[in-house]
């Protein structure tokens, strides 16, 4: 798992160093602070480590990373990722299972990363990024636009997810904890999403009834994706899952259940990084941190131009999401007692 990371001059993030990461890590901050960029930076790095030396992969880590950054951030040249006006180059470092991986490049870099150091051994596990938009109804469009047309539009987080979903479901004995999580996921779903090979499309199956994916609720599709990745064994206990806005398309009650399942999976070994704006996400994770003594939940928050890492186990830190709920409450008091 990620033990720590450090970013310097990475897009809007001038400096962020976070240590003592947990199995669930929450990232919060206002719009434009760089939450999604942080998730994508971590994702690009771990996917580089996972592709490196896998099978007959001929590329070195530097080549894999450059391509991953290009297709994940969809910039004309990767040097565009360096903070505007920064005097120094972009720098990224992570510690994974006690081993370091770091790289750096300047603003004129097009595709060759000069500085890269890797001490992390090759990984057989897969990590995944769940973006805010669901992919099931866009499945063919994503694959076509990236694999045939090779055009920008759906970045690598979408392509990798569509490819991961393409793997068929596997029977047999599932990881026991995954089986319990899938059972809970199915309770929320009240059905399951399946790929119809004949028709060549995804559909939602409830009992004996089948519904086109286009008329299936967004929240159902979102939860189904996680269920499918657990069912086809794309994910294993050493995977890392990045979720951008887990709250999107989910009712607060479903957010709560979804996060309970995430806590179960985290206890099983999977590491999560989530970026959120939601009052319900932060509150629920705070409660999980209080209830589960074995789960440390760091909260990495952007305030103005600096980042702070605290732990939800120690309490709910001051943050703009809770502040806004208090502000709304105060406005209501003003209205009532004016």
């Amino acid at each position, binding site marked *: 798992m990620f033990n720590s990371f450090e970013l310097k001059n990475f897009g809007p993030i001038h400096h962020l160093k976070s240590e003592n990461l947990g199995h669930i890590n929450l990232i919060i901050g206002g719009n434009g602070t760089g939450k999604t960029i942080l998730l994508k930076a971590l994702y690009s790095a771990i996917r580089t480590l996972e592709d490196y030396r896998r099978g007959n992969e001929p590329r070195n880590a530097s080549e894999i990373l450059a391509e991953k950054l290009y297709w994940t951030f969809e910039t004309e040249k990767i040097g565009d990722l360096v903070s505007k006006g920064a005097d120094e180059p972009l720098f990224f470092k992570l510690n994974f299972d006690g081993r370091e991986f770091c790289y750096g490049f300047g603003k004129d870099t097009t595709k060759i990363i000069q500085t890269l150091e890797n001490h992390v051994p090759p990984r057989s596990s897969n990590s995944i990024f769940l973006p805010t938009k669901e992919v099931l109804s866009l499945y063919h469009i994503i694959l076509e636009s990236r694999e045939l047309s090779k055009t920008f539009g759906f970045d690598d987080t979408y392509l990798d997810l569509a490819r991961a979903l393409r793997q068929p479901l596997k029977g047999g004995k599932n990881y026991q904890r995954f089986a319990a999580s899938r059972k809970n996921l199915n309770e929320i779903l009240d059905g399951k999403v399946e790929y119809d090979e004949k028709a060549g499309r995804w559909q939602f199956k409830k009992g004996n009834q089948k519904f086109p994916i286009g008329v299936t609720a967004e929240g159902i599709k979102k939860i189904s994706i996680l269920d499918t990745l657990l069912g086809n064994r794309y994910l294993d206990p050493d995977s890392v899952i990045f979720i951008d806005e887990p709250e999107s398309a989910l009712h607060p009650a479903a957010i709560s259940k979804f996060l309970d399942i995430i806590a179960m999976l985290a206890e099983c070994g999977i590491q999560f990084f989530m970026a959120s704006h939601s009052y319900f996400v932060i509150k629920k994770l705070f*409660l999980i941190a209080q209830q589960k003594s074995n789960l440390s939940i760091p909260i990495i928050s952007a305030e103005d131009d600096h980042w702070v890492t605290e732990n939800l186990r120690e309490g*709910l830190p001051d943050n703009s999401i*809770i502040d806004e*709920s*208090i502000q*709304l*409450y105060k406005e*209501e*008091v003003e*209205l*009532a*007692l004016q």
Partner: protein
Amino acid sequence: MTTEPIVESGMTFGPYPERCCFYIEKSKTYQKIKKDGVKIAEFLLLRSQDEPKVWIIEAKTGTPHPGNQPTFNDFIGEIREKFANTLILSIATCLKRHPTCEELPNFFKRLDLKEVSFRLVLVIKGHPEDWLPQLQDTLQKALKPTVKTWGLHSSSVVVLNEAMAKEKGLILM
């Protein structure tokens, strides 16, 4: 002339202009019915006479943690009962349904009950600010039948901590 300060739950409310405060919990009217198990809030405060607003004040030293069930539900149930009873008793007294109704301060006697706006205000000593929004939401939900049946303003139920009660002029010292 002002009333004596009212000390409840470790907080000192007032003093307020004499004819604007009715310490209903200590009133003769309430003392007569208290033995029948009627629970009520502490006092009434008339905040404005042009557009009459009556705040019904209940004070508490703290709240049980929302995770501590059923104590938290019991707490909410008790506050709901006190506010509902106080609203009814206040109106019944203004309507002179009790022989002790003369104890009402003059401004209250002259209230146009059709026009008066009520607020049900819970003041909790030392309550963390970030717990207040959820507590207010919970209490608003519990008192919804009262708010709806009496045709009160939809934001009639308010929860304050001591600091906010000072800001709102309830606690003066």
